[in-house]
């Protein structure tokens, strides 16, 4: 039987609150993708239509991508595009056109690899990014970029570092027994 204080609380608050938490956060396994190029550029906000046009042209040219994200900065929009390295030349050609037309402030291309993973209720839980970056820091692995959208965590690391990243993550996250944490997907 509930004590009077608890009954009073329940009478006044109809909402039920619950939190999902494990001491070791479960995942559905880590996936590595190698052989990627990360394209970084900063462009003025008014150049967004030109950027869209370039992405349309790249799509028509059959350019695939693994991750694309952008965030506002004082200079406009910082844009990251992670794509298979085989598309580097065609992407750089399209980005060069934007640079000439829309005034890209800066840009660079980095050989990269990616680790991505999901887990139960990842989109609605706190602490996942924190745990991820602490795991990498413990092994002195530097991320180039990171994005969490929906229930997916994407980590971009320099070329040759994704296997170490997976090992570092495996120290702190739970992985299903049936899934190999070294599962690797070549880009393309």
């Amino acid at each position, binding site marked *: 039987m509930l004590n009077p204080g608890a009954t009073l609380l329940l009478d006044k608050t109809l909402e039920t609150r619950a939190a999902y938490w494990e001491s070791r956060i479960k995942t559905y396994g880590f996936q590595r993708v190698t052989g990627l190029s990360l394209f970084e550029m900063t462009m003025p906000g008014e150049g967004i*239509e030109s950027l869209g046009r370039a992405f*349309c*042209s*790249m799509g028509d040219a059959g350019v695939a991508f693994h991750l694309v994200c952008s*965030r506002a900065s004082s200079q406009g929009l910082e844009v990251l595009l992670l794509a298979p390295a085989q598309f580097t030349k065609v992407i750089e050609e399209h980005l060069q056109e934007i640079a000439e037309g829309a005034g890209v402030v800066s840009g660079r291309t980095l050989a990269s690899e990616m680790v991505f993973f999901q887990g139960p209720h990842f989109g609605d839980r706190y602490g996942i990014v924190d745990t991820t970056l602490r795991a990498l820091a413990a092994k002195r692995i530097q991320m180039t970029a990171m994005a*969490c959208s*929906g229930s997916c965590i994407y980590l971009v690391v320099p070329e040759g570092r994704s296997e170490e990243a997976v090992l570092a993550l495996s120290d702190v996250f739970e992985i299903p027994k049936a899934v190999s944490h070294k599962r690797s997907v070549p880009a393309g």
Partner: protein
Amino acid sequence: MKETIPMEGMKVSGDLVRVSVADASLTEELLTGFLKGLTENRVNMSLFIGGKGSGGVQFTCCVAASDQDRVKTLTEAIPDLKACVEFCSPVDLLSVFPHQFNLKALGLSLMALGKARTPLHGFCSSLSALTFITDHADLGQASSVLQGAFNLQKDPSRTVC
């Protein structure tokens, strides 16, 4: 004839605050300190986009408006963090899906939003969705623009708010 590609639906996550470090760069220690504070305060991020350049780390994340005071309190406790964190509210996340890893879907979205001069604070792909960060005041316009770009208006049952 206007070119469109098939999209199945749209989703809005509203009542959010955008927290960002954009004009300065953080050390990794400051970023981990910030994230540790979010965990200790049980604050979930609806979206996180971070990158590391030569000067340090910059990021944008979105948290529930109801968590804004707690996030402000934890950043104020770290002066170096407080000096470079900006809060922007109210913002919403507007997602269209599925993108099927087709850059053209993003391209059409950006062209439509750019043509309508809808301010964007960022965007991010996930396995299925393309998510755009907009000011709450611009949500209606952004939603109409994307519905038009993908012919979603014919099936409003697939639009979730």
